[in-house]
């Protein structure tokens, strides 16, 4: 319950504060958000599978975000930032879809 409330609180906080993204973070923020969403979907699926582990979730959340940002950063340095960003988004998108499918099977048996 608390994580959902925290998520909603974060959304409300973002709407209220209206911060601007620092330009140094601008390439990484969208990728980081997608990576974090992947971790969250994975966590929900793990919970439904009964194998959810707090520590794993925290570590995977943080590492997902960091690795995604690192890959994009490396891509920028190598001159293939745009392509690598697309690649990361595609991979994470596939994972999110498969996790969502697993969650759906758990919830609806279909």
């Amino acid at each position, binding site marked *: 319950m608390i994580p959902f409330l925290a998520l909603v609180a974060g959304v409300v906080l973002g709407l209220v504060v209206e911060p601007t993204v620092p330009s140094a973070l601008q390439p990484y923020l969208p990728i980081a958000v997608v990576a974090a969403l992947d971790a969250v979907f994975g966590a929900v699926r793990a919970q439904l599978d009964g194998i959810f582990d707090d520590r794993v979730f925290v570590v995977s959340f943080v590492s997902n975000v960091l690795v995604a940002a690192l890959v994009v950063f490396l891509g920028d340095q190598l001159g293939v930032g*745009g392509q690598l960003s697309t690649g990361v988004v595609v991979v994470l998108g596939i994972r999110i879809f498969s996790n969502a499918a697993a969650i759906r099977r758990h*919830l609806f048996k279909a």
Partner: protein
Amino acid sequence: MSTREPADGAPQRPAPGRGRLARLLRPRLRRVDLLIAALLLVLGFAAVVQVRSTQEDGVLASARQEDLVRILDDLSSRSERLRQEVTTLTGTRERLLSDDGSAAALDEARRRTEVLGVLAGTVPARGPGVRLTVDDPEGDVRAEVLLDALQELRDAGAEAVELQGRGGDAVRVLAGTSLQDAEGGVLVDGVVLSAPYVFVALGDSSTLSSALGIPGGVLDTVEAAGGAGRVEEGEDLRVGALRPLEEPRYARPVPD
């Protein structure tokens, strides 16, 4: 869909998955839970911030560096093109506006065209002048008499001259016009005109008529040659015979 949350936490009807989801929803307060909550808070915050910045700043803010460089290149080359176009158009505008010279030059050119057209016989002309009729019942008036009359008209300042023969034949008389005796009349620039001959000359009518009428002048010469001359002044005479404009084949204008 209703996710019912049983009070005792031991759901009977829901599937095991739903029970686990319900367990996830149940408040727990361990340190790691707070950590998870903090992470999700950050996630929600970041997602909203990202969405807002994407909406606000449009494409450019989220574009990558190389894309920005390309866009900038496109824009600068485009602006360069537009700047050149502005320069060209401004120059044109300057030329059209600044010197009323342009309009004045156009008017001047038009005026010169008309003047030269009158001189070259390519446009009709009208104005005050005289009409000199030379009757020649006997056929004794020769070309040189007419040439004298023409020279006199030119001396007196005739600006446009036309020589008419019988039946409405008319020739515009120019600087290079030649007069020759011919069978049945006078050959004027390749056209045979026969009596009576009529000169229509535009100029100061009183000067022209007095020049023709001086003693021993044109009229006397015509009478001596066996013809009869008659001068009428007119306020609005018309010289209507035209010449095609001939390009000089050899002479070229000297550039200023």
